[in-house]
């Protein structure tokens, strides 16, 4: 297992490098923006009071050489100091930490659901290729590909909450109900259904298409011929030989698309008033609260890196070759 540990270690180093690059990018974004960096950090010009702006200048040494400023900034971020939101009068990290769990629940559930359902539907389409089931899955995937996720969210809530009244249209829990224990979990779960489905739909379509294409390709490979020549049943060939090989590119793409999925949570949380980081991003945009926005940028990037490590582990579990090559 030395190989796996090595890969994991190199993966962590890579992640650290990427993180530092993002912090540096954050810094230059603030400096490249039109206007005084202190004003940019404080929010919309004129909204912040003089004292706060002066304090920012002092804190980040904005009159010093730019490289020194960069050093100060990186040092602060490494210590977990993501700045101070003037709008909310609280440290940015505190605001983010409070919102993080809701977003993690949403994105992780959606990611795993999309992967599981996508692979299942793609497999179904591949084994029934050319039949109505295959066509139906293809059409649904095509539509899901073409529809903006926030609009799907609106339409689902129009149908299931406003018209049918089956599910709550927004929020994390029923306000004022005071549920505890299992009842609370069930309540949150009920609120989770629509946002998760909305967020997962696009990726599910994407993975279903990919699984289908990949399975059709693997089906034509030589070792499937070998399996057939052994007299194995169709079911065993699909589960033991085709699927496992076909799933590898799906995992790779899932890792690459993790960034999009995390980004998509901004839209979903906005539509469903889900009190996570995405919703916070929307509020920050409205209030021009750039400190918070840049903090979100950093935190969501870390989430993507974690998702990537997750997919790497998945890949390593499926493919034994990874331990020596790469």
């Amino acid at each position, binding site marked *: 297992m030395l190989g796996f540990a090595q890969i994991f270690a190199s993966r962590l180093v890579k992640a650290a490098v990427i993180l530092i690059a993002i912090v540096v990018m954050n810094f230059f974004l603030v400096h490249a923006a039109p206007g005084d960096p202190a004003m940019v950090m404080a929010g919309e010009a004129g909204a912040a009071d003089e004292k706060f702006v002066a304090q920012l200048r002092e804190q980040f040494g904005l009159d010093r050489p730019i490289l020194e400023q960069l050093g100060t900034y990186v040092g602060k971020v490494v210590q977990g100091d993501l700045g101070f939101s003037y709008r909310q009068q609280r440290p940015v990290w505190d605001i983010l930490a409070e919102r993080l769990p809701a977003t993690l629940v949403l994105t992780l559930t959606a990611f795993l659901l999309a992967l599981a359902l996508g692979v299942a539907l793609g497999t179904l389409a591949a084994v029934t290729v050319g039949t109505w089931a295959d066509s139906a899955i293809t059409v649904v995937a095509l539509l899901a590909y073409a529809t903006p996720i926030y609009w799907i969210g609106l339409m689902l809530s129009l149908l299931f909450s406003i018209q049918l009244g089956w599910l709550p249209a927004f929020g994390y829990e029923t306000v004022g109900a005071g549920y505890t224990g299992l009842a609370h979990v069930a309540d949150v779960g009920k609120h989770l259904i629509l946002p998760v489905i909305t967020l997962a739909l696009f990726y599910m379509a994407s993975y279903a298409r990919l699984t289908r294409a990949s399975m059709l390709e693997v089906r034509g490979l030589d070792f499937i*011929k070998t*399996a057939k*020549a*052994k*007299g194995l049943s169709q079911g065993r060939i699909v589960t033991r030989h085709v699927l*496992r*090989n076909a799933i590898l590119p799906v995992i790779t793409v899932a890792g690459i698309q993790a960034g999009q999925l995390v980004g998509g949570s901004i839209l979903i949380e906005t539509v469903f008033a889900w009190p996570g980081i995405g919703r916070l991003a929307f509020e920050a945009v409205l209030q021009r609260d750039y400190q918070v926005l840049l903090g979100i940028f950093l935190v969501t990037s870390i989430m993507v890196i974690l998702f990537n490590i997750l997919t790497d582990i998945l890949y390593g579990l499926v493919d034994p*070759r990874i331990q020596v090559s790469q």
Partner: protein
Amino acid sequence: MSLSELTRIPTETAAMTTTPLLDVRGLSIALPPGADRPLAVDNLTFTLNPDEILCVVGESGSGKSMTAHAMMGLLPAPHVRVAGGSLLFKGKDVLTMPEAEQRSLRGGRIAMVFQEPMTALNPLMRVGRQIGESLREHTDLPAPARRARVVELLAQVGLPNPAELAEAYPFRLSGGQRQRVMIAMALACQPDILIADEPTTALDVTTQKQILDLIRSIQAERHMGMMFITHDFGVVAEIAHRVAVMRHGKLVEYGPASDVLNRPQHPYTRQLIASVPHYIEHRDDHTKAGAPLLVADKVRKVFHVGGGLFKASKEVVAGDDLSLTIHPGETVGLVGESGSGKSTLGRSIVGLIKPDSGRILFQGTDLLALDRKGFRPYRRAVQMVFQDPYASLNPRHRVGDIVAQGPVAFGEDRGKALARARELLAMVGLDGSAADRYPHEFSGGQRQRIGIARALAMEPKLLVADEPVSALDVSVQGQVLELLDDIRKRLNLAMLFITHDLRVAAQVCDTIAVMRRGRIVELGTAREVFTNPRDAYTRSLLDAIPGKSWHIPEDLQAKMGSGVAGAH
């Protein structure tokens, strides 16, 4: 021996001949509409008896694999299907059996070994399990017994540490080892029939010999009926009891091996046998006149593969201490198995790779000491013919342009270059309209002719030919070799001919250098190397040539050099 025993033997033999293991009657297999012919296999009839090896011989597209695929249910349905006839296994038609019964035959009574060992195993499953799957499907053995049987099978096919190997994934095994695993898998349920579809084509010659020996001994031990599909008459001579020759889906000749090999009747069989590369004394030893055209002196090249943040890269010595000379008009063969580094020197001479040390002197100038600009004039003098006729021509350019591009890059007028290109295309045996067409309109052999014309357009003094015929069918191979020989003579070209096939080298080379693991182990005239090899490895290579004890019938020998054959 008692009388009853004596009388029993002939009756049994008689019974065998009356009910063959496999009886193919009037089999036809249809191709989808729009294919180059309607039937892949056309009214094919033959039988396979227990305890015999039947070789089915043909070139690509002859339909030789289709019968086997039909038997194993591997035809790519619904595009390709059986259109008529029957496939009787022990008297019962496989084609009309219910699917479940067919499946129990496959891998159980009839097993198959494929051509490409590198891709025929599932990369994500331990090899032991892949063999065990067969047992699981066709026997009632409990899991521990299956595991024991797998280890036993792996030992039988001559693999070292079978217990350990059963737990390995395919990527850890070499091509030869994988092919042994495939054979073990096929033998798992003690089949009556073993079908081997070009099982040694993808292997090096010494590995090929080992696998052929293994297949032959296993067949003899178990008295299986074996259908061995191949394109190589050397291999046929090595193992066949009976031979069936196919062309364009039809059976053209069928009979005992000794008849077909030594007294071939059908013109196609005769043509195939005549084009089998063989050692012939095609000219006297080359007399090295004057100064050498090219001298390679202690050339060394190391490749660094893999490597990353936490892993040192692996060093692969592709060439070490490579020294040889090429005189004007001389053909030097560089022979070696895959991974021997035989392409390294050729690629270094034409400037595609840069060696780490050593000198390559062309008419006294060290090419390796030159910078890009200094090297440029020498590009014209040294040209290359590539291996893969399908990859070596840009699919989007007209053939005339492909040939003319080089001279144009050296400042020649485009019109003149194109006119010259037409002349050259005629010289390599293509007609005048070829220049205006695109590569995909030509066959493999014709494309290789275009590649030769492209090299000649530069008016080179030295031609580096890197496996120029290994991707071609045997009959086409002969024609391209003849063309190269003819041109070499007419233009007094020197040639470095790189090949894995000793038989081909024997046919065209004056001097032969044998390479192994990046080093030249033997260097001498073709005659010396073939008649009196000094190095043990050269001897093992020569020993591994399939069918070496078979002599091509006199009347089919030495057709080489009897004029340029038409382009195919």
